[in-house]
């Protein structure tokens, strides 16, 4: 256990913020450059996880458990979001037999 604590103290909080910012940005780039609806969805998950990590880091550094509780709520939200989102994607695929989001901008089949 002393190991873990000393590891933590050696890493400044700023580096966690930096890591989360980079992962979040990768998620944003993923949403911007891809056309596959599922990959876009996965990029959104990546962004959510960047935020999760940051909340957990803040929670550990400030000694307050609320941050980690927020992460639970985000995970519950992500599970709900994935269930509905994938159902929508399956529906879109069934109707257009493609998951290219550019087909969706016509808003009709």
């Amino acid at each position, binding site marked *: 256990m002393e190991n873990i604590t000393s590891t933590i103290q050696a890493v400044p909080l700023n580096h966690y913020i930096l890591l989360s910012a980079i992962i979040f940005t990768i998620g944003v780039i993923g949403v911007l450059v891809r056309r596959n609806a599922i990959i876009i969805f996965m990029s959104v998950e990546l962004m959510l996880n960047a935020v999760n990590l940051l909340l957990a880091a803040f929670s550990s550094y400030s000694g307050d458990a609320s941050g980690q509780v927020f992460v639970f709520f985000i995970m*519950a939200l992500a599970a709900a979001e994935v269930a509905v989102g994938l159902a929508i994607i399956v529906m879109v695929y069934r109707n257009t037999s493609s998951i290219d989001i550019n087909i969706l901008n016509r808003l009709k089949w």
Partner: protein
Amino acid sequence: MSLFYVVAFLSIIFALLVIFTKNPVHSVLYLIATFFTFTIHYIILNAQFLAVVNFIVYMGAIMVLFLFVLMLMNLNTDTEPMKSTLLKVVGAIAGGCLLVTLVGSMKTLSSASTTAMDNTGIGLVENLGKVLFSDFLLPFELSSILLLAAMVGAVLLAKKDNKTA
């Protein structure tokens, strides 16, 4: 200390591979690897319960669903829709601008909070349970309604409509 940097490096590499791999199934597998590195991050942060929940919820449930849907559609590299190179470059530049903004705003922060961590027990199940069921009881109950609504919505959406079709 170096463990964090190794794992952070791996997180970034896998996250990049997620969005730049052409085959969607490989993307999902890289995302699983990314989430695994996140689990290690949580363990480094001494948030064991969060680590295990991340493991179960993300790697055990959400990513299996993604993989399941991808396999159901049987997508491959040759059916993968791609944006033009120009749009990709523009997207990457826009994302880079966001990163610059985030890092720039981080620079203005005071970097005082580097020596906390006296209470190492906050990530344990007992403490989180106490906080969750006292301070956050109402949000907790509400999230169960959210999950129920999502479940009903997903079943309704994915069901084949026999009457109209």
